[in-house]
């Protein structure tokens, strides 16, 4: 091998960059978070169901909430009819957060895990104290 020193130095840099996730985690895995449903409002429910089904809410709640915002604030339409035909009042503060009043154990758990920082809280306030 010619220019051995330079080539090996380059390959070491390549290896460090490529293996960065493995080195950074150094073998400790972080399990998938379980958002908590343990709030008084949810406990009081006879049928524990969100506005739409669970899988849809897990994967698509962000697009769904964005839609709700546009409907409520831009179109002035405050009623949403879900897939089962039930009418729901469109409001983050009064519908979503009424049940999910535990932002820290519910919203933040997954958002922190996936490094997502939604701008909901630029306007809305956390029911259990402001962000500041």
């Amino acid at each position: 091998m010619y220019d051995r020193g330079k080539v090996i130095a380059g390959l070491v840099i390549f290896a460090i960059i490529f293996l960065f996730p493995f080195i950074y985690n150094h073998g400790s895995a972080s399990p998938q978070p379980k958002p908590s449903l343990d709030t008084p409002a949810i406990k009081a429910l006879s049928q524990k169901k969100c506005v739409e089904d669970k899988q849809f809410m897990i994967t698509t709640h962000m697009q769904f909430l964005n839609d709700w915002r546009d409907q409520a604030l831009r179109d002035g339409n405050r009623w949403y009819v879900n897939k089962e035909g039930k009418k729901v009042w469109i409001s983050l503060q009064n519908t979503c957060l009424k049940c999910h009043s535990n932002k820290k154990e519910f919203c933040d758990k997954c958002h922190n895990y996936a490094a997502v920082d939604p701008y909901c809280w630029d306007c809305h306030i956390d029911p259990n104290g402001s962000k500041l």
Partner: protein
Amino acid sequence: MIAQRIIFPLGVVLAIVVLGLIVGSIPALHGLFSVGLIYVAFAVFFFGFIAKVVNWAKSPVPFRIPTTAGQEFSLPWIKWSKIDNPSTTGGVILRMFFEVCLFRSLFRNMRTDLRSGWLIHSPTKWLWLLALGFHYSFLIIAIRHLRLFVQPVPGFVELLDKVDGMFQIGIPPIYLTDILILLCVTGLLLRRLFLPKVRFISLAADYFPLFLILGIVISGLLMRFVFRVDITAVKALANGIASFHPVVPEGIGAIFFVHVALVCALIAYFPFSKLMHMGGIFMSPTRNLANTTRMAYHENPWRKPPKFHSYEEYEDMYRDYMKEAGLPLERE
């Protein structure tokens, strides 16, 4: 020719998509396919890359072969272009920087036309612009994906994520690099498809990576905006792989497996393809050597010292015959 060069690589990419869809719909295969395939593809990429670079480093470069793009260092009153034709290590470092980070060779791209009987050379920057946009988008997208592999997520990844999605269009926000890479890859593909001279020299190995990367971008965008998947489950899987504690969470949609199949195909194909220019650019003798052809003595590395045959040895060999013939001898 079109069938071999264009339809065939497109067919291979579509076959990979179909494979991803089939595996995605059979939960029993999820673990083997996602975790197993990712480890194999990573290993092929990592060791293949190193083997390729070591193999290149074994080839001797006996003399300086820089391609000169400017006046070499000669007499003091002749203007020397220090970066395009460097004769010092510092100049070479600058030239490599401009080559690797700003694609200077592509920037010098020229087109030649016959205009009313005159042969006209004019600069053309499209290839440079598309290539620059494509490569930097790809880099930023790769770094952004770290958020799924490591925990806690480092600050620079979060910052990059914020800057990339700073226009806050839609939720989840559209990334600027996603739009840019889509435009640039499409542009680079159209260049090969519609410029007759470029199409003539384009082979299956040129189209395949383009189709593959386009497939990766489209499947990623579909996963983000249309067929949503549970991102915490995806992170649990990716983080498990990067910490050697693989887990296979349930309920990840088929689109994820399409994306993973395409990415694994790309990185496993990487060391055997033109994509190795990633390592190769640092190994290019036409770029990384100072132009000291006449300034310094360059010894051929495989040169063996010649065997000399001195007159003393010659005389020793033929002394008897020379004596017999009456020739003069230095030593009796």
